[in-house]
Structures are given as C-alpha cells and as structure tokens.
C-alpha cells in the first residue's frame, strides 16, 4: 500500500519533537478525523533554521510530516511557503489517493506555522492560494 519512502519516513521520522521556544507554530487537522499535525519552526534571518513536528495520525500523516519538515529545513520563508502538497507526496514517491489529504495537511501546517511567525512579528499573514481549502476546521472529514 505504501511506498518504501513512506515506510522509511514512518519508521524513521525526521525532525520529530517539539521546539519549546519556537518562532512559529502551526496546527492543522482534527482528532475526530483521525489526524492532527503540529509544526514548530525556528527562524533566523528569514531562514528556517530548525523545524520539528508532532503528529497524531496514520502512517501517511506521519511520513508526510517528516518529509515536509525535511523539505523546508534551511529554506527561506518564501521558499518554504511555495512547497506544495504535491511536492511532499512526490518526495514520498507517491501516496495512495485516499491519503493525499495527509500531504495537504502538511502543506497547511507549514503555512500556519509561517503565518504564526509573521503575525508574531507584526507582519501581514500571507494569503492561502485558492485550489484547496482543505482545512479540517469543519467537522466533515474529507478525502
């Protein structure tokens, strides 16, 4: 069902943990739907110098969190913002169709963490591009 890459990131998650003095934190998902992702970022000179995640969810959710944090580490905030859910899924060598929402959660988690940082620094939050408004805030768990 899962690619080797997904299993690798699930079995050996990168950047798992918490940053106590994080500059930005983003949480997405909903326990009712079975997945919550929390992304912590540390920012220095507009660059993400450290990133950690905590995830409650399936194998794909954990692997997506792990891969997403790898992809944004060392990137500028602008570069990190551009990393799409597709990029996360592709880096994982694909996700089963029903699990694509896990990569969407990862993208949204990063966006929330970045905007949390921006707001805390008196900056305007960046606007989510259209396309997918897959936030799990509504109770209907989506595919």
């Amino acid at each position, binding site marked *: 069902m*899962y690619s080797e890459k997904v*299993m690798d990131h*699930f*079995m050996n*998650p990168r950047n*798992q*943990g*918490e940053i106590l003095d994080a500059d930005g934190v983003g*949480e997405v998902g909903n*326990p*009712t*739907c*079975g*997945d*919550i*992702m*929390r992304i912590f970022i540390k920012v220095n000179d507009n660059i993400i110098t450290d990133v950690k*995640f*905590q*995830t*409650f*969810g*399936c*194998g*794909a*959710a*954990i692997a997506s969190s792990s891969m997403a944090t790898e992809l944004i580490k060392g990137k500028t905030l602008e570069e990190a913002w551009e990393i799409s859910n597709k990029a996360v899924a592709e880096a994982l060598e694909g996700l089963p169709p*029903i699990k694509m929402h896990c990569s969407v959660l990862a993208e949204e988690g990063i966006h929330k963490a970045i905007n949390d940082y921006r707001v805390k620094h008196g900056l305007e939050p960046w606007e989510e591009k259209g396309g997918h408004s897959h936030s799990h805030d509504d109770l209907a*768990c*989506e*595919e």
Partner: protein
Amino acid sequence: MKNEHTIADTPHLLEPQTYTHDTMASQKSIYMDHSATTATDSAVVEAMLPWFSINYGNPSSLYRLARESKAAIEDARGKVAKAIGAKPEEIYFTSGGTESDNWALKGAAFALQKKGNHIITSAIEHHAILHTCQYLEKHGFQVTYLPVDEFGQVRIEDLKAAITDKTILVSVMFANNEIGTIQPIPEIGAFCRERGILFHTDAVQVIGNLPVDVAAMNIDLLSLSAHKFYGPKGVGALYIRKGVRIDNYLHGGGQEHRKRAGTENVPGIVGLGVAIEKAVADLDVKTSRIRALRDALLDRILHEIPNTRLNGHRTMRLPGNLNVSFEFIEGESLLLLLDHAGIAASTGSACSSGSLEPSHVLLAIGLPAEVAHGSLRLTLGVENTEEDVSYACDEIKKAVERLRAMSPLYADYLKKRSCNV
C-alpha cells in the same frame, strides 16, 4: 563443538545455513486476526484435495463419479446440521457469509412483503447485513436499526418497542466481529417465535467459539462461513428452518433442493463439513485455552499501558476477541508498527478502512471518534501460545509508547497533567 567441526569441513554450506537461520530468527510471525480469517486446517485441505481432480464429477450428473460427489455433499450437510442442532434438509450451501446474509434478508423480505414491510436489525451488524438493509430500504422496506448499550448489547426492551404489525423479520448477529459482544440470542429467538416473526442471525463469528443450537434457540435462519473456523474461503451455509419459506436468491439449475442454483463447490463443501466437525469438537477445552490467553493479554495491556480502555463486554464476549482503545494515537500507524514486528492485527480506525469514517460499531457503543481511531483488535486462535501473548504485549507497549511520543494530543495531556499536579 562437534557441529562446528562438521560445518568447517563443508565450508560451502556455512553461508546459506547462517543466512537461513538469521532470516527465520528475525521474521517473527504472529497471527492475531482470526476474526478476519483463519488458516485452513491441514486435515481439511487433505480431505478437500481428492474432490478437485480425482472425484471431480458434477453432483447433478448420473454416473458413479457424480454420485460420489453427491454423497460427499450430503455427508457434509449432515455434519453442518449436527454442529448447529439442525436437520440435514435445513442446510443450504452458499459461497459464504455474505451470500447467506444477502439471501436470508432479501429472500425473507420479498417472500413476506405481502404480510408487511418492516425489518428490525441492530446498528452494529456486519456490512453484509447493513448494506443489504439499505438496499431493501430502496425497495420499499422500512428498517429499524436497534441501538446497543455501551458494551454492544441489544436490549430486548428496545426490540419489543420496535415491533409493529408490519414487522416481518428480525436480524441480530450472534456475536460481533469487531468487539466480540455476544447478543441475547435465546431471548430474541423466543420473543420472535412467540410473535410469529422470522428471526435471522449472522453466526459467522460464532461457530467453533460458542455452542449453537438452532432448535433450542428458536432461530429460523442462520448464516455461517467456513473460513472463520479453519475451513476454506468461498464456502458457507444458510440454515433455513423447515417450514420457513424464503425467495431464492440465485436462479438457475435445481441444486440445493431447487433453492440455490449453481454447480456445487464440492471441494469447498467437503472442507466445510470437516472443518465444522472439528470446530465444535471439544469446544469447551479449546475455547477455555484461548480465553485464558486472551485474558492474560488483556490484563497485561490494561495494566501496563495507561490510558487504555476495553471496548465491548468483559464477559459476554467471544473467547478469542480483544478490542482496546489507546488514547492519543491512531490505529493504522499502530498496525504498521505491529506488522513490522511480525504481528497481524486489525483496527476500527477510519484510516485503515479507506472510508475515513471510524468503525460504526465503536461509534454505536458511544466511543468518541478520536478514541475509535485508536482502537486495536486482536483475535486469538488455536495456534497462539503464551509466548505469542507475551511477545505481542511487549511489542504493543513499545509501539504505543513510540506513537504517543510523537502525538500532539499526548504532549497536551502530559502538560495538562503536570499543571494539575
């Protein structure tokens, strides 16, 4: 030392031998998903084999080869009947539990539609029942889905209250496949018989686990499936009490007393016969052993892993079934870790089913969705040992700890707890 010398003398054997040994040692394989299916018993396989290529005659034909097939089917029919307290002529072979359930419900509903259009079932039935009921609802039938209590049992008062003068059929499973809860079947049977309402029970999980007596329990229709009790897949039976008339489901030839068309699955039926005979023999001894293993595993899990709850009934429960929820984690990731450790198990989490909805059974007993997501079902069977139980518990504990360590819900829980202290 003597062995070492021998190996040194034959160096070409050294490498493959070492390799084989290491592979076996690291590939532990513990099957704890007997409610999903079981391994076909070797004696069952052996009994089936001649019926593929040696005695392959079509039972409907007239020559000796065919008569042998026919006799084998009748022998198996006798064994199934004996196992559940029925008469041989009340047993009809099918392709398994799903067909038996579909036939029982659709066959009874359409045969009795002039009498009424109301069917009563429970909210925690297998999908073979629930989806059949939904189909019948599209065809003019009304279905009441009885709720269950927190342990998963149907309350007889709810059944009585749901009966109308249009009620033609009650279908309540004998025991649940996910949480193992056993229903008050004799009470439901007695009540339905008294009211003249047909009573069907899906007993797919029950054969070889609990004694079944269709006559004493006032059961009119009963579904069973061979692969749940060490028989082959693709074969089952529907018991139809003598005098009960239901419509045919499969139309065609005159097999099974003209009630179920299609050339009989002779090897499968032979396998079903041998399997059910073995399944009900020494039932108490076998189930006591499995129950003791299950209880040992359950006690260890509940004692050693905090924030864990048992789902289902403590005593009114299938002997091999264990269903627990671990707070703060999700079941699919738990299954993946257990699979990596060589343990085959199951979960009611949505994320494993492809539907994104957690198990309807766990929701029906009142579990919040997030707790249903963290459920684990282990169903033990004949080949499980004390070592299996001990290994499984150790691995479950490790896996739960590992997933909790990365769970934001657990992090929040720990923070809250340290604030309260």
